C-alpha cells in the first residue's frame, strides 16, 4: 500500500461517485455531479466533462485505486479508461440535486400537460391552460412521485381536483356509437345508459344504435359490455376521442 502523504495527494472536490459491484469486488469512479445523466442520455459527449480522472478506484473518498489484478480478473483488461466507460454505463449512482430537481420539474409539467390534455372546464367545455393546472396543483400541494408514471399521477391529480374542488374540472368526454343487434338491445340499453354521461341518439329500429358521450375511463367497460354480451355482434365505433370546443372565440 502506498504511503499517504499530503504531498502525494491530489484532492478531488465535488465528486459524484459511481459504484459497480462485479465479480464480488466493488469498483468506483469519480465523476462531476449533475453530469452523469447527461452522459447516459447521450447529451454530453465529452468524457472529460464527466470523469474527474480516468482512474478506477475501490474507494474514491479514501483515494484507493483498484488493483490491476482485480481489474484484469473482472473486466479482462487493465485499461482504466475503458473500464471507466463500462462503470459509467452500468454503475449505480446517487442522483444529484440538480438532476433530481430537473427531473421532478419536468415530470410536474408533464403531469400538468396530461391533465390539461384530458380535461375540460365544464362551464365552457374548453381545456384549462397548462399553467393554470400547474397553479392548481401547487394549491393542492401535490408532490410528484418520481417512480410512478405520469399518466397514473395525472389521473390521481384529476381525482384530487374533483374532491377538493380547487378548480371546476371534468374529463373530456369521448363520443361513441354503439350498434347492437335487437336481441340484446333491450338489456344493454339500460346498462349503457347507466354508464354513459349523456345520450345523444337512441334509435331502436332493426338494431339498437346509440350515440353516447362517456368518460374515457369507462371505455373498456362499455367495450366489454357490448362485445361480450352480444357475442361479438355488437359494434363500437369511436366518433370523437375528445369532445371539446374548437377554434378561438371572442369574448363579448
Amino acid at each position, binding site marked *: 500500500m502506498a504511503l499517504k502523504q499530503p504531498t502525494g495527494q491530489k*484532492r478531488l*472536490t*465535488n465528486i459524484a461517485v459511481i459504484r459497480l459491484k462485479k465479480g464480488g469486488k466493488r469498483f468506483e469512479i469519480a*465523476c*462531476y*455531479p*449533475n*453530469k452523469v*445523466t*447527461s452522459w447516459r*442520455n447521450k*447529451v*454530453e459527449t465529452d468524457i472529460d*466533462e*464527466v470523469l474527474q480522472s480516468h482512474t478506477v478506484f475501490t474507494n474514491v473518498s479514501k483515494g484507493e485505486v483498484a488493483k490491476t489484478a482485480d481489474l484484469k480478473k473482472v473486466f479482462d483488461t487493465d485499461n482504466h479508461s475503458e473500464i471507466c466507460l463500462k462503470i459509467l454505463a452500468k454503475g449505480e449512482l446517487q442522483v444529484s440535486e*440538480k*438532476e433530481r430537481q430537473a427531473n421532478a420539474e*419536468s415530470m*410536474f*409539467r*408533464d403531469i*400538468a*400537460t396530461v391533465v*390539461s390534455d384530458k380535461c*375540460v*372546464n365544464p*362551464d*365552457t367545455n*374548453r*381545456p*384549462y*391552460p*397548462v*399553467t*393554470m393546472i400547474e*397553479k*392548481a396543483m401547487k*394549491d393542492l400541494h401535490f408532490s410528484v412521485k418520481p417512480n410512478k408514471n405520469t399518466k397514473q399521477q395525472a389521473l390521481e391529480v384529476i381525482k384530487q381536483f374533483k374532491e377538493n*374542488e*380547487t*378548480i*371546476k374540472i371534468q374529463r373530456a368526454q369521448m363520443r361513441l356509437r354503439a350498434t347492437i343487434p335487437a336481441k340484446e338491445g333491450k338489456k344493454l340499453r339500460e346498462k349503457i345508459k347507466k354508464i354513459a354521461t349523456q345520450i345523444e341518439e337512441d334509435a331502436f329500429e332493426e338494431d339498437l344504435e346509440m350515440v353516447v358521450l362517456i368518460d374515457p375511463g369507462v371505455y*373498456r367497460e362499455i*367495450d*366489454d359490455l357490448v*362485445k361480450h354480451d352480444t*357475442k*361479438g355482434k355488437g359494434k*363500437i*365505433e*369511436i*366518433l370523437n*376521442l375528445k369532445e371539446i370546443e*374548437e*377554434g*378561438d*372565440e*371572442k*369574448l*363579448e
Partner: protein
Amino acid sequence: MPLFFQCYNMKRNTPQQVSSLQHNLSNVRNICILAHVDHGKTTLADALVASNGIISQRMAGKMRYMDSREDEQIRGITMKSSAISLLYNKDDKDYLINLIDSPGHVDFSSEVSTAVRLCDGALLIVDVVEGVCPQTHAVLRQAWLENIKPVLVLNKIDRLITELKFSSTEAYVHLQQILVQVNLLTNELYTSEAMGKTSAVADECSESKSGEAQSYDWTTLEDEEEDKNIFFSPDRGNVIFASALDSWGFTISHFAEMYSKKLGFSKNVLTKTIWGDYYVNMKTKSIQKGAQFKGKKPLFVQLVLDNIWSVYDAIFIKRDKDMIEKIQKTLSLKIAPRDACHNDARVQLQAHTSQWLPISKAVLSIVCDILPSPLQINEERTEKLMCKQAQRFDSLPKETQALKSDFLACKSGDDSPVIVFVSKMFPVDKKILPQNRQRPLTKEELQARREKAVQRHAERMSKLKVDEESINGTPIQDVNDTGQEEEQNDDNQVFIAFARIFSGTIKRGQTLYVLGPKHNPATASHYIDPALCLKDLSSHQHITSFTVNNLYLFMGRELELMEEIPAGNILGIGGLEDHILKSATISSTIYCPAFTSMYFDALPIVRVAIEPKQASNMKAVTDGLKLLNQADPCVIVSVQETGEHVIITAGEVHLQRCIDDLQERYAKVEVTVSKPIVPFRETVTLPPKVDMVNEAIIDQNQPTKSNRLKQFEDDDEVKEEGIVEIFTPDKTCLIRIHCVPLPKAITELLVEHSDLLKALHKTSKTDDTENILNSTAVQNLIDFKSKIANVFNQEHKSWKDACNQIWSFGPKKTGPNILLNRIPDYNRPSVWSCLDTATNSQTFRDLDSCIINGFQMATFAGPMCEEPMHGVCFIIEKWEYLNSTSNGQIDDKCESSSAIPRKRDVYGPLSGQVMSIVKDGCRKSFETQPQRLVAAMYKCEIQATADVLGKLYEVLGKRNGRVLSEEMKEGTQLFIVEATLPVVESFGFADIMRKRTSGLASPQLKFSHWEIIDVDPYWVPTTEEEYLHFGEKADSQNCALTYMNNVRKRKGLKVEEKIVEHGEKQRTLTRNK
C-alpha cells in the same frame, strides 16, 4: 377654507343654467384638446376649468383635474378622454363649451378617436421646445379624417425663456419654424387626401362606363382648399401663443388691440403685420416690410415678445422689486399681497401673467369665434359619418337620405328625429352617480347628527369605564360594518355611454332604438322586440330598443343628472350596458344608418395571456374580461383553443392600464400576465440536396440516411426510410405504414378549405347527405374533390389516383394531413363516398375506425414536440392478420378458444391495440424522415418615415423577420414596409419597434400563413466543410431547435439539454483540505 367653498358654490354653473344654454345652439361649442404626450393638454384644460371656478386658479396646472384615475395621477399621463361643460361669457353672450380632454400617448389613440368623433373643433397643442412629435402628426390626421377644424396652441413658451434662455428674436425664429412644421403636416395630409380623391375618381370613371363627366382635377381641388383656410397662421387668428403652466396666453388680435391705441395704427393693419417680416419705422411712424433684411426687430418681437421677456426677466430671473412695481403699474395689475410676497418666484410670476394675459380668455374667445358650432356641420362630414367607406351616399335608402337634412339642420324640436352617436362605454362607480351622491345636509339634520354623535360618545365612554375589554369589541365591529358596506358598493359598477346628439332632443322616458355598428337600414326588419338585449341577438340582428332613464352632463369628475338634452351636445346615457358593446347609434328611427366605424390609429397588437393567480378565481376573470371588453374600444379579448384567455391591446402602457382595471375594477382578483402559447406544426420534407454550407450532397441518400436512421438501426420495425411495419402486441395483426410529405399545393388547398372538410366530416358521420348539406355545399365539395384530384395528377406519378384512395384527413378529421389506403386487397370506399349518389357495394372492414383514430392521434401530436402535424401523408400499405383465416373477422375467435380471452386481457381489446400501433407506427415512420417545424407567421405592415428605416430593419432582422416589399406612400414621406414575422417572435415586438424608432414606425400584425422553418432541428455537422464552418458542437444557434426545446420544456417533455454545461465550474461544496 369656508370662504373658498362659498365662492366655489357661487361661481359654479348650475345644471339649469347649462340646460338653458344647450338650446341656443349657435352658442354651443364642442371641442377637444389634442397633442403629443406631455405637451400640456391637461394643464390647459385645468386653466380652462379654473376659469369657471370649479378649481382654484392657484391649483390650475398642478391638480390635473381631468385625470381622475389614480394611475393617471401617479404616472402623470392621461389615459382616457373625459369631458366637462364650461360657460364663457363673451360680448354679453353666454357660450356653452363642451370640452373633451384626450390622452396623448400612442397606446390610447383609440380614446382620441372617440373624442374627435364627438367634436366639431379641436385645440391642437404643440410644445414649442419639443416641436412637432409623432403623435402630433397622428392626432392631426385623426382630426383631418373626421373633418373637424383645428386651432393651434403653441404652448410652453416660458420654457424658451427659462430653460433654453433664448433671446426674444431667437424665440421668434423658433416659433416661425414650428409653425412651418405644423403647416407642412397639414399640407401633407391635404395632398395625400387630394391624391386619394383623384385616384378614386379615376377609378370610378373607369369602372362606370357610362362616364359621368367628372372634371376633378388638381386646380379645382386646390381652389377649394384655399377657401377652407386649412393652414395655421397667427394673422388669421387660429394660432394661440401660450404657457399653460403660467396660465397666460394670447393671440395677435389681443396685442393688436392694445397697440392700436398706443401707436395709432389701425387694428386691422396691426393684426396683419404683427406676425411677419415687418418692423416699425419710428421716424416715419409707419410699418414697413423687410425687418430681417434690414436687421430690424420684427414687430412681433418688439411689441409682443419683448414685453413677455421683460416680465419674466424682472420677476423670475432678476427678482427686481422696483421693476415689478413698474410692471404692475403699467399693466394695471392688482396682485394680492400674499402672492406678491411669496418666496417662490414662479407663484409671483403666475399671479402676474394670469392677470395680464389670462389663457382661458384667449383660448375660449378663439374657440367661440373660430371653431364651428354644431349648426355649422357641413355636408361632407355628414355624408362621411353616414356611409361606410366603400359605400356611396346615393346607395342608401331614401328614408335614410332624408335624414341628412336633419343632420344639417341640427334641430332640437320634437318633430325632428333623435340621432345619437355613442362613441364609447365607460365605467363609473355607482357612488359617483348624482342620484346616489350625498347631498349637503341641512342645518337641522346636522344638529340631529351631532346630538346622536354626542350620545354615542357618551355611551362609549361609560362602557369604557364599566368594562375595559369591550374596547376591543367595539372598534372591530365598526370595522366590520364599513367593510361590508364597501363590499356591497364594489359590485356597483355602472357603464355610461359617452355620446353626442346630432339631431332631435333626447328626454327621459323616451323609447329609442339602439343600432349596432353593423346595422344596415336597407335590410333591417321593422319589428323589434322590446325585451331583447344584446346577448339575445342573433348574428344578423343589430337592433334593440330601450327606454331612456338617466341622462347626464359631464362635469369633469362628476356627473349631473339632466331631464332632457337637445341636439348638438355631448352627453352621457346610463342603463345601456345590455344594449351596447362598444359603440352604437341611438335613434328614434331605424332608418338611421349605423355611423361609420371610427378610424383607429393604433390597432391592438400586443397579445398576452391572462390567468388568475388563484386557480379558483377563473370565473371572476372571465366575467371581468367581458366587462373590460365593453369598457375599452381598443381591446380585443378572446379564448384560444388551448383554453387560454388572451387580450390584445394597443401597447404596453395600454396593457398595463387594462390589467390594473381588471384587477381593481372588473375582476377584483389578482391576475398573472404571461406570454401567450404559440402553436407550431410538425412536418417532414424531402431529403435536402445541399448541406448547411451549400455543398451539394453527392451520394443522394447516404448522409441523411445515416443521420436519421442511425437511431433506428437496431429497430427491425423500420424497413427503410419512411416505411415501418409494426405488429400488435399480441402479434395478430401487421400493419405497414409509409410516411411521405404531401405536395405543397395539396396542403395549401386543405388549409384553405378546412370548412369544407368540416362539412364533409359532418356528413360522413350521419350517412345522410341531404339532411345536413344543401346542394351548394355538395357542389362545393365536388368541386373541391376535383381540384384535389387535379393537383394530385399534376404531381409526381406516385400520387396517381391518390384522391380516390383518401381514407381520412387529420387531425380532428379535418386537418391538412392525409391517410391513404393502398392496401392491395382492401377496396374501401374513400372519404368522398357520401358525395356519390350511386350506392357503393364496398364495405368497411372491422376495426376500420381504429386505424382512423390511430391516425388522428398521431397527427394531433407529432413526435417532435407534441404539436399537430401539417402536410404529411401516411400510406397504409399492408394490413394483415397473421393467425386468422379470414381477414377482419378476428373477433369471432375469442369465443372459440379459451386461450385467447386471457391473452386479450393482457393486451386489452384488439381495437385498442390497433389504434395504438397505428399511432406509434405513424410517429415512427415520421421520425425516420427529415423533420421540420412549421411556424405560424404574421404578416406585418409597418408605416415608417425614411429616417428610421434602418432601425426598423434592425429590429425585424433580430426577430427573424423577412421583408417582402417596401413602398413609398404617395404624397407623403411615409414608407410602407411589408414583412413576415414568426408569431413566436412577436411578443414585445411592437414595443421594441416603437422604442427603437422613437414611435415613428407603427407595426400592424395579422396572421397570414404557416411556413416551414427550413432548418433541421436535429441537425449536427457531418461533412468536413460543415465541421470547418460550424465547429464540432455546432455552437451557432439553431433556431428550430430553440423553438422546439422551448415547447418541449413548456410541456414537460424530455429536452436534450445539459443540466450543467461545465462540470468543473460548479460550486465547490467541500473545502479543500
